[in-house]
């Protein structure tokens, strides 16, 4: 069992080989992951990556995987590999709390499409990972259950909202984790934790069973230790789903099989973010510059580009996502599922039932955003706020379209202005946290595929992440470019 721990640092691709040649069993691997979780998650400085771990559930799946392998069944790359799932993605039989008190005790009555596909591929689901409540946050500090910690420095945030997923992959208690990305919630925690995080093109991966935050922005994406691993997971979860009307029938390439260095020099757009210079951590700017040099050295043509309406991205994002969220979260009312408030002295009337259930069940950040979103949609304000934000979104989409139409293959930016900050650093001013999303929200608004991957460490050893964006449906060229960068920099350690 202890032996199996040595496999935990491996990539999916590598451990798949070990499973295939019998060096390790899925049960041993799964047990090692479970032990790692137990060792790292709890206690005073516990990472709190997981909100729920179901040992029996996981070991049963691992046994089934071993059995399949022994019977000579054809096993895919994820068969028997332990993975973690963000708490807002339904896994039938496991809790789906979205890290909120209002869904405490709620057990998912059906599988999300992505969980279904992972299970069908033989993956072993370890449990549900910690997150900012309903996806609202960039630090996982807004979890109603426990704040999560960055494995590189336990005083610091892991990022969010898919903090738990990023932690688990970085702490090597799982080989891959699913997160959800609405404005950067897969990419930013990946960057803070020093792992790879991919947000697919909007519509590439089904949202059926993903508990909605902002319907026109949400996408499920993999968090992994390598780019190849991200491609492997994407192969399993991507593709049209008739249960999601926004899911695309666009042709599905083979991602991991298609990974290869770009066959011609790329034209790489380097975003001019001089306007945001004040907020940038010098180490991040330097690491980014080194990344640009690396890409040039690889033979690609790097040129500075601008996105004229970038300055409106944060405002547009926070109006649109909160508006959609105010509607998506209306169903959490204590009537059909989740937590229902009971009156202290007398039975509540209907309005009391609603206001107490939601008042007690939702955290402060969620309430803030629901109110903001409700306001943005309200009579008399709709045109000025929600309407205007959608117009800005159209302009932002046009910027990206023109950029890629002009021949740019990949746009690169830092993922975040700084490395992971201290727990509690931004609690005074929610806006400060919002503003740090400036590099990731654009790709969300425009529905573009984007990836964060390691590009070095700051002076205290905290990870820094490079951010790459491609045109719609161009996940494969994006992954190829990222893979090449990763190889050239030995996973961001060699810059």
């Amino acid at each position, binding site marked *: 069992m202890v032996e199996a721990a040595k496999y935990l640092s491996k990539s999916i691709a590598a451990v798949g080989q070990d499973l295939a040649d019998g060096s390790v069993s899925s049960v041993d691997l799964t047990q090692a992951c479970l032990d790692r979780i137990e060792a790292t998650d709890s206690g005073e400085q516990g990472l709190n990556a997981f909100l729920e771990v179901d040992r029996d559930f996981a070991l049963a799946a691992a046994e089934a995987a071993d059995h399949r392998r022994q019977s000579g069944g054809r096993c895919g790359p994820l068969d028997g590999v332990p993975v973690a799932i963000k708490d807002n993605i339904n896994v039938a039989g496991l809790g789906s709390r979205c890290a909120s008190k209002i869904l405490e005790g709620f057990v998912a009555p059906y599988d999300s499409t992505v969980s279904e596909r992972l299970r069908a591929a033989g993956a072993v689901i370890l449990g549900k990972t910690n997150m900012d409540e309903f996806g609202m946050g960039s630090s996982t500090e807004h979890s109603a259950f426990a704040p999560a910690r960055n494995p590189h420095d336990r005083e610091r945030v892991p990022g969010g909202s898919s903090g738990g997923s990023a932690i688990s992959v970085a702490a090597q208690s799982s080989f891959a984790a699913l997160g959800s990305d609405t404005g950067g919630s897969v990419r930013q925690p990946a960057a803070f934790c020093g792992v790879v995080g991919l947000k697919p093109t909007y519509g590439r991966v089904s949202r059926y069973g993903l508990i909605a935050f902002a319907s026109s922005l949400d996408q499920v994406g993999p968090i992994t230790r390598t780019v190849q691993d991200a491609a492997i997971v994407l192969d399993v979860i991507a593709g049209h789903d008739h249960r999601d009307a926004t899911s695309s029938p666009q042709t599905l390439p083979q991602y991991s099989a298609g990974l290869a260095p770009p066959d011609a020099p790329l034209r790489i757009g380097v975003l001019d973010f001089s306007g945001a210079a004040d907020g940038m951590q010098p180490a991040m700017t330097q690491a980014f510059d080194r990344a640009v040099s690396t890409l040039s050295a690889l033979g690609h043509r790097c040129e500075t580009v601008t996105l004229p309406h970038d300055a409106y991205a944060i405002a547009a994002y926070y109006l649109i996502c909160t508006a959609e969220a105010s509607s998506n979260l209306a169903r959490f009312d204590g009537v059909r599922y989740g937590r229902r408030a009971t009156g202290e002295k007398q039975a509540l009337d209907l309005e009391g039932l609603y206001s107490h259930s939601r008042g007690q069940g939702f955290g402060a950040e969620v309430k803030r955003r629901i109110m903001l979103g409700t306001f943005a949609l*309200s009579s008399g304000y709709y045109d000025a706020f929600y309407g205007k934000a959608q117009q800005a979104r159209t302009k932002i989409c046009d910027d990206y379209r023109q950029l890629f139409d002009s021949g740019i293959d990949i746009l690169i930016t830092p993922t975040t202005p700084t490395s992971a900050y201290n727990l509690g650093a931004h609690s005074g001013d929610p806006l400060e946290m919002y503003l740090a999303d400036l590099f990731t929200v654009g790709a969300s608004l425009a529905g573009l595929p984007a990836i964060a991957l390691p590009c070095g460490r700051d002076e205290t050893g905290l990870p820094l992440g490079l951010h790459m964006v491609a045109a719609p449906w161009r996940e494969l060229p994006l992954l190829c470019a990222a893979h090449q960068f990763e190889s050239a920099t030995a996973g961001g350690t060699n810059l």
Partner: protein
Amino acid sequence: MTSYDVVIGLEIHAQLQTESKLFCSCPTGFDAGENMHTCPVCTGMPGALPVLNQRAVDLAIRAGVALECTINRRSIWARKNYFYPDLPKGYQITQFEEPYASGGHLEFVVPGSAADGSEDVAKRVRLTRIHMEEDAGKSVHSHERSSLDYNRACTPLVEIVTEPDLTSADEAAAFVRTVRRILRYVDACDGNMEEGSLRCDANVSLKPAGRSTLGTRTEIKNINSFRFIKDAVEYEIARQRECLLGGGEIRQETRLWDSQKKVTRPMRSKEEAHDYRYFPDPDLPPLLIEADTLAAVRQALPTLPQQRCDRYTGIGLALADARVLTEDRDVADFYDDACAAADNPKAVANWVINELLRELKDAPIGELAVKPQAIGELVGLIDKQVISGKIAKTVFGHLLEHGGSPAAIVDRLGLKQITDVAGLEQIVDGVIGDSPKQVEQYRQGKTKIIGYLVGQVMKRSQGKANPAMVNSLLQKKLADE
């Protein structure tokens, strides 16, 4: 004393008769136990998403075409946000700024009444729009608790909105009846107001006669029968008139029709509509209705009630009869099939209207044992004098019980009319011989007594003698002697 014009606009909600719900594949229909026809989508479970049922769109298009609307190529699903336990997601998926159908109109007749000697009045009402939306679930309130049944949640509806062109309670009722008939004709909706598959809200206001500015209107909800449309609207008109004449002001509000107390009363203000914060639903792409889809629907549309009624009056049926026959498309179809097997549309109409329809008792006409061809045949047999009208009723009785062919029944039961003169003469002679008293009375001038003699001949022939022939034979013989 000020005279007021009545202004009425209607919003009719009709459930489209699809097999499945609008955004999930749960069955529609009311026969299941509570919450048996539900799934994560129609109960608003976390993570569920709507997927459009295309069949509902087809039925909606039929309704729009039948009501002469412009069918918009592109329309948008919108979220209407409000909190109520029967609305599982906390919003209803509907259409707001861009509905699938705009404009439209309906010509109909407000029937006159024999009671006050009023005539039928033709009327034309403009429609504003029709849009599609999902229905909510059902609340059941008891003394100590409220329960929710989501079987009805997500059932597809069309909402038909009229311009404020109606001017009386009678017009409103006649309008809804006509819409119902049309929706049933095109198989879009079964029009059952009692079960709630057709519901109607009425907007009523009064304005001083001749003025163009509309008065403040109230909305009446919870009208679930034709009777109630008339009663509720009449009550509200009277209430508003009394209020205005007394110098009062009408409050804009939603009122409920209370069918027990026969009044409208205001809804509690908390139930009033607030800001719905409509916005396009990001989970659904715009609804696109292509030209060829539209053309196919138009092509397949059956003849509508008014055209069918006109055709029947055109071939000589009385207007009242034509209306009865075209009330239900199944009856009109039955009638047409029966006519195809006969050469006498008026007689066929008579049989269908006066004999057949009362046997229906809520069952569909297609379920009767007697088939349209049989009715046609029956009429033919009478016309060819094979059987008398009276015997035909006996045959009809058999047809109702067992179906089959009238000719076969006549043969089997030996019901053919006796028309050969010799045979008849024999019976006539017999009756004359056996009824000297009546014969004497006839000769004395009491000619009406011939009826008795005819009756006797009919009796002796088991009703099979041709009455006309019997009559003329008797007259001849009695005159001879």
